[in-house]
């Protein structure tokens, strides 16, 4: 008897192949439309492989509990080296039969499910044709499975600790959610204090100042959170579970090296500079203010007053500053502008307050109250199409098309929220792409909004997109949710098994694969002049494979040799 060399295994182990071919009748679903007995005879007599022993059988329902037991018994008693299941879609039962293999000595990657139901019996009416087709698919499965290789899970040790970049509300929230006796948190803040923008907002919402203050206290008092102030992140390498980080303190210019399993980026946002648009004639020195500076004034003892210290008798609140320039609605300005209007009214009912808005955007279920409160407080609401400022003189076009002018003592602008100046730096450092607006791009807008292309790096707060305090905290908690459920102290991570590998003999280091990899799973090994796959990060999509002219890559379980064999049989 000849020996069959496993071409794809990359090992010099030789063994004689014995392939089990089990066809599921799926009741009448397959058996009724396909002549299984003929297939069994034909395949058993297949003389393509003189050196391979084939055992071909059918069974009622392979996916049923007795079916699985039967299969397990058959694998064990026959000592199959490979297994082909002719049944339904792998989307239904691939994992079922892989599970059966796992109970035996047969490596689950030496089995193949062939879909003769959705691709044959359910869609081809003519029994003769369906039979021929099913036989062809099964032959393809046998040809392919013989070129498959054993693959093994490679569990990875992880570090459960977390680096959080940014000490604003989002960063603090994440830190508090994550820290525990078996998980340390490193909270890095570039300024000399925690709290971020929210400090300036304190005192506005009832109890909020207190809440932020308490939060800062509990962060500072938490033994499992190490706070680095006046510190920047200098360098990051690694991947989910294993990041190596260098921190640089401004004070002693010393590098601190830390390790973490995940990184939460809470780098915050900043306000659109009204000077970027000439319509607001904003200088920062007259009686035109940004909303944030008014928030600060209200938080102080004197309330919002003119530079002279006098109370304004009329105030214009202008919404949507920068909305068209940035091409997004920040989603929070309407709400806080209504709030500011009420504060002015509360400061003195004599202040004439006018809001100029384009659309009312109050996307939170309780926000609408703000609108009613402002209306009740006697705030004038003017819907406009267009607006421009000269000092505190406001020229505007009403929605009806009428043009008008009004003068005020004070004008307050609601600038859009934009990414902070550090965003690009961190994007580069963490190899996370930015979106068209300059915010960090999430790996999937809907199903994974806090995750990034670099698994293990999470984006929260205004670094992700314009959002207010409560949404920032919500996103922070979401990132904590991912980390808490994925990086469990003492447990290992099991990365994707069917990943891509690169042959050193063929790779020229041209970097095609590296450029197209969405996950940053490929890096360049300059000393060897080749590209290398980080198997802990690779998801096995094969995009790199498609980009390589040298054929230096091999996407395991979907190699060209395997696919060519399927093609050969399809065209037989």
């Amino acid at each position, binding site marked *: 008897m000849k020996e069959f060399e496993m071409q794809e295994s990359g090992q010099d182990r030789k063994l004689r192949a014995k392939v089990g071919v089990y066809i599921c009748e799926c009741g009448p679903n397959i058996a009724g439309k396909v002549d299984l007995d003929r297939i069994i005879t034909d395949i058993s007599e297949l003389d393509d*492989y003189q050196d391979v022993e084939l055992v071909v059988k059918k069974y009622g329902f392979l996916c049923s509990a007795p079916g699985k037991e039967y299969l397990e018994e058959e694998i064990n008693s026959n000592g199959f080296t490979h297994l082909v299941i002719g049944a339904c879609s792998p989307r239904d039962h691939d994992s079922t039969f892989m599970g059966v293999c796992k109970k035996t000595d047969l490596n689950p990657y030496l089995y193949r499910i062939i879909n003769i139901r959705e691709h044959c019996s359910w869609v081809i009416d003519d029994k003769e044709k369906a039979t021929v087709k099913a036989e062809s698919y099964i032959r393809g499965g046998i040809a392919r499975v013989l070129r498959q290789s054993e693959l093994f899970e490679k569990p990875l040790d992880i570090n459960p600790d977390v680096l959080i970049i940014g000490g604003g509300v989002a960063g603090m929230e994440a830190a508090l959610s994550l820290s525990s006796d078996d998980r340390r948190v490193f909270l890095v803040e570039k300024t000399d204090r925690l709290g971020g923008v929210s400090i300036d907002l304190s005192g506005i919402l009832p109890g909020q100042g207190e809440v932020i203050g308490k939060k800062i206290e509990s962060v500072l008092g938490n033994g499992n959170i190490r706070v680095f102030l006046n510190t920047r992140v200098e360098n990051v390498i690694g991947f989910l579970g294993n990041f190596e980080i260098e921190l640089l303190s401004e004070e002693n210019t010393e590098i601190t090296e830390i390790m973490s399993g995940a990184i939460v980026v809470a780098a915050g946002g900043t306000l659109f500079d009204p000077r970027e648009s000439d319509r607001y004639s904003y200088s920062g020195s007259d009686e035109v203010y940004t909303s944030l500076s008014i928030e600060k004034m209200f938080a102080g003892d004197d309330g919002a007053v003119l530079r002279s210290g006098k109370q304004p008798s009329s105030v214009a609140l202008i919404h949507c500053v920068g909305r068209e320039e940035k091409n997004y609605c920040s989603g929070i300005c309407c709400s806080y502008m209504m709030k500011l209007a009420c504060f002015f009214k509360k400061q003195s009912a004599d202040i004439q307050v006018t809001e100029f808005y384009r659309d009312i955007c109050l996307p939170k279920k309780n926000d609408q109250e703000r609108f009613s409160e402002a209306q009740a407080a006697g705030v004038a609401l003017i819907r406009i199409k267009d607006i421009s400022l000269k000092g505190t003189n406001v020229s505007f076009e009403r929605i009806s098309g009428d043009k008008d002018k009004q003068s005020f003592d004070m004008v307050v602008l609601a600038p859009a929220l934009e990414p902070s100046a550090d965003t690009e730096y961190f994007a580069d450092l963490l190899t996370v792409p930015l979106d068209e607006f300059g915010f960090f791009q999430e790996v999937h807008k809907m199903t994974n909004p806090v995750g990034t292309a670099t698994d293990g790096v999470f984006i929260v707060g205004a670094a992700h997109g314009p959002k207010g305090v409560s949404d920032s905290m919500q996103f922070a908690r979401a990132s904590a949710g991912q980390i808490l459920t994925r990086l469990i102290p003492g447990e290992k991570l099991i990365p994707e098994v069917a990943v891509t590998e690169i042959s050193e003999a063929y790779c020229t280091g*041209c970097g095609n694969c590296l450029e197209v990899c969405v996950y940053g799973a490929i890096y360049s090994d300059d000393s060897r*002049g080749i590209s290398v796959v980080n198997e802990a990060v690779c998801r096995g999509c094969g995009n790199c494979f498609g980009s390589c*002219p*040298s054929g230096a890559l091999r996407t395991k379980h979907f190699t060209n040799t395997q696919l060519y064999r399927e093609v*050969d049989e399809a065209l*037989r």
Partner: protein
Amino acid sequence: MTDAQGKGAVLPVSKDPGDAILEFLRLAVAKELADAVILPMKVPSGDSFAWILMNDVSLFEGAVPIAAAMPVQGAKALRSLTRKGPGNLTVIAVMRPCEIRAAIELEKLGQVHTDNLILATYDCPGAIPLQKYVDDPGGSEEHFSLMRRSGKPDNTAKPVCHYCENFSMFDSDLHFGYFGFSEKEVLVIPGSDKGSELLKGLDLDLAKDLSDWKKGIDSLKAEREEARKSAFEETGEQLRGFSGMQSVFASCIGCHNCQSACPICYCRLCYFDSETAQQDPDALITAAAKRGGVSLPEDRIMFHVGRMTHMSLSCVSCGQCTDACPVSIPVAGVFSYVADRTQRTFEYEAGRNDGDPLPLRQFRKSELPGIHELVKNAESEEPSHE
């Protein structure tokens, strides 16, 4: 390109433009503006040239900056020197525009590092196929000298040279222009900051207006464009139907010389030589049984088509593949024709140094609307972007 000022410096010529270039290089090395140069040199037998990296000025004597033949594509020489990194030496390489363009493509592919290279081109009269040169070096030199004076390749030149439009200044650091005017001087034109620095270091004044020279180049270009059109028409005709291509490549012996000679085929080992690319013997037997017969080895045409998908976007039409073919298949004619079309599909021009990434490494979310239209509107040759 920084020749926007439209000015160049003038180098005096004693015998031919090559001497002026050599003198220029001597000066650059003497003034320590460059550590070494890469130039073609006649081999001792006198029937070919070799690339020599030299820092000994006395060797310059035997160098031929504007050589009649191109035995090894210059980009390959640059790759040998810089594939591991830019190195510490400043090296001036004087090469044909197609060689420099290939080097620029290879840089995008991580195979050449030009950081410390000063890439210099010259008005290229065309190249004489190596076999012809080996057979008759003397006659070839005479032909080449005439071509150099006229700027027009004659029938001894490689076929692709006849319709090469990129024979003059492209994206090099420095260009030596001499077509269309007296044999008394050579223009030296900076094409980048590196080039300008070098000229400044040599105290060369950008005094000469380039418009006359450019006019001459443009009129030569127009002629080449005409030639290109008719050559492509002819190639298109040859390739009509699958049988057309089949007969073009019918005599292919599968030696893969074209691939070895190609400067763009940068792979360490060719995919088509790999085990994966080979037909499974089991499949060959069943295919033969089904079709009545199969040719062995089976991949001759597939090899060429596959290579076109691998390198046509970076093909610089240097013609080395045709030179390398032992059975005289017009490989370069076909590749140049295909490259012209594929590069236009992605609005890409091989050899440009404008920071454009390679087409297959990027995408636009909205592009290539209905890829099938690409085929239907083949004749219009509209770029397929939205």
